[in-house]
């Protein structure tokens, strides 16, 4: 007896292919779907339009599993929700994570709407994270954990979300692929690129969208935090907080980007201590559990693969949250995600608005 219909988002990679295969084995009525999110047209001669090879791999995997496969054209929504935001964030001197918005809007909103349209009870992806009793947890393999990118999804979706590879390691996923004969994808290398920036140069798409004279790509000053100009850079969109590469030399200690100021195109550099923050403000707050109260102690992560840091919620204002960190954290970067955890359990998150050097006190409550 079928355990219900599940729409599986399939990229053509090993994780989502194995996810689909495991669901077939578990008795689900599996429908595979590959999202067409962008079109490279002719600008990448060796990569055919619409990541065609990936689509073909996903189709072949579905064929061998004996399940239907569809290509869903989500190009215009993805362009609006993810690519436009990506470009705007860089234009504002911030460092966006498009994967977060893709999960929030494309996979776990638009794709869920398609799942509804075909009567699918469940949606599944190849993410390394786990859903346990309607709550989101880190993937079992700490090296692969992708829960950091999933804080923004609608909490209601968790009830129908299946992440079949989240409770295994990448090696185990590859072993499953071999065991069930998915040789097409079993040893595919992992792409570290942003899917719509396949050659790793994000300035190209900024130039494409904003033009050659975009301020974010125009020359500007390197400055110290006291305002001293120490050099010239070729566009602040090439920098992110904590970056060391491409900075002027000749300083006694290692220098880092500590701030980006789009108003005067300045990239502020300084030594490591200027990189440390003790407080964080984030917006677009989203909870995956009942909202914890101000004063709660949580662990936070300010970038993918950063170690969790202990913090206290000091303020919640609509969709804005402020936390005070127990110990300073380096490179709190506007545009990155702030994700709140309780151990392995994801509580929620937001987009980092700013970090600051002072540990904000708890607000004084009126008696």
């Amino acid at each position, binding site marked *: 007896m079928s355990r219900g219909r599940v729409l599986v988002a399939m990229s053509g990679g090993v994780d989502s292919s194995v996810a689909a295969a495991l669901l077939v084995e578990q008795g689900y*009525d599996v*429908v595979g779907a*590959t999202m*067409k999110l962008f079109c490279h047209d002719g600008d990448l001669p060796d990569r*055919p*339009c*619409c*990541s*065609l090879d990936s*689509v073909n791999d996903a*189709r072949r995997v579905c*064929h061998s599993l*004996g*399940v*239907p496969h*569809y*290509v*869903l*054209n989500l190009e215009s929504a993805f362009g609006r929700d993810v690519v436009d935001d990506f470009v705007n964030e860089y234009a504002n001197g911030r460092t966006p994570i498009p994967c977060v918005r893709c999960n929030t809007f494309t996979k776990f909103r638009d794709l869920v*709407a*398609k799942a*509804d*349209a*075909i*009567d699918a009870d469940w949606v599944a992806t190849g993410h390394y994270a786990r859903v346990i009793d309607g709550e989101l947890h880190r993937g079992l393999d700490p090296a692969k954990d992708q829960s950091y990118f999933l804080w923004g999804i609608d909490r*209601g979706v968790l*009830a*129908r979300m299946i992440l079949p590879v989240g409770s295994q390691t990448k090696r185990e996923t590859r072993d499953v692929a071999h065991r069930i004969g998915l040789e097409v994808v079993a040893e595919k290398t992992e792409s570290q690129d942003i899917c719509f920036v396949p050659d790793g140069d994000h300035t190209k798409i900024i130039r494409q969208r904003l033009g050659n004279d975009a301020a974010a790509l125009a020359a500007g000053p390197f400055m110290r935090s006291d305002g001293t100009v120490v050099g010239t850079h070729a566009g602040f969109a090439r920098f992110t907080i904590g970056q060391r590469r491409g900075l002027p030399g000749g300083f006694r200690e290692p220098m880092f980007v500590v701030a980006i100021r789009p108003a005067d195109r300045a990239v502020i550099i300084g030594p490591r201590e200027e990189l440390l923050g003790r407080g964080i403000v984030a917006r677009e707050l989203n909870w995956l559990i009942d909202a914890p109260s101000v004063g709660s102690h949580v662990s936070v992560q300010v970038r993918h693969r950063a170690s969790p840091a202990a913090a206290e919620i000091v303020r919640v204002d609509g969709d804005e949250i402020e936390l005070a960190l127990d110990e300073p954290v380096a490179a709190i970067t506007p545009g990155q995600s702030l994700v709140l955890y309780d151990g392995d359990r994801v509580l929620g998150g937001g987009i980092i608005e700013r970090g600051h050097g002072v540990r904000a006190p708890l607000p004084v409550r009126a008696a």
Partner: protein
Amino acid sequence: MPLLYIVGMPEPIYLDHAATTPVRPEVLEAMLPFFGPRFGNPSSMHRWGRDARTALDEARERVAKCIGASPDELCFTSGGTEADNIAILGAWRALRDKGRVGVLTTPIEHKAVLEAVHQAAHEGADERICRMTTDGVVDVDAFGALLGSDTAVASVMWVNNEIGTVQPISDLAQRAKASGALFHTDAVQAFGKIHIDVKQIPADILTISGHKIGAPKGIGAVFIRRGTVIEPLFHGGAQDRGRRPGTENVASVVGFARAAELAMAERDEECRRLSAFRDRLEQAILERVPDAVIHGRNAAQRAPHILNVSVPGVDSESMLMALDLRGIGCSAGSACQSGSVSPSHVLSAIGVSPELASSAIRMSVGSLTTEACIDRVADVFPSLVAKARGMTRAG
């Protein structure tokens, strides 16, 4: 077996005959000897060659007869796309040095024509795209106004593949001829459905294709009227009078001839059968989904096999998936290389709003269609619409 996942479901229903059709058993039977004992190369002088050559010539005569052409006016191609390219680019390249720089077409053509016209423009042609009426028919006066003594070739499809509207080919061809331009028509969707006689319409070049009428994929033909000079796309041997070099696809040509003859013999009756199905499906949908929009419905003449319907607010991608999961195969717009659905250039050209165009579903009936198919689709389609519209899900 790719259809495993629909076990426990009624027989699947194929409603995409405008995309392609299964090879008819009679056609396959006619072809088989040419994969076996009659394998010769028609250009060889020995007995094997002669045998293949005879079969080829005979097949050429038979296909030519189906459209009222002489055998020497028929050139076999790999299909409709190649034939369209030979027509547009061949005519333009042959005429460009004679001061004829205009290439005129409509915005509802198959991509094979539109892209060939773009290529001609890239080579220096003056691309002219004629206005359409909202009925899905060429605006004949606008067409006339775009013709001039500098027009090399005008190309208008006979039957539109997405909405099934029939274009006034005879009138358009006469106007083109009067201005001295060559006239081409892509008759891929018309062949087997509409009476085609090149003695009655003054088209110079005409495209037909095999796999829409029960012949295999990969075979088509282009009629090139005697005296019409076109520049070949390919260079090589002298096959097909040099118009299309390359060893002839004898088996497919023979199959094409058989399919064409069968289609001609059955045409009137089959068209009655198909248009009755189309009308019945159309009526059933309109009864149960009163705000559904049938595209091309007001055209003076419609091909019998194509029904294109938009249900406002129900996106075609979801609908196509839902239909497929119920075993019903339809299509929408023109498929991209990846297999995803893009909004139809045809619908936007006839003034359909992007929202409505994004909900268009094309159903095309044909050899596999039975009354029972129509009844089931007439039942399933409206119920899927109702569900899509009433969709509210807890959680």
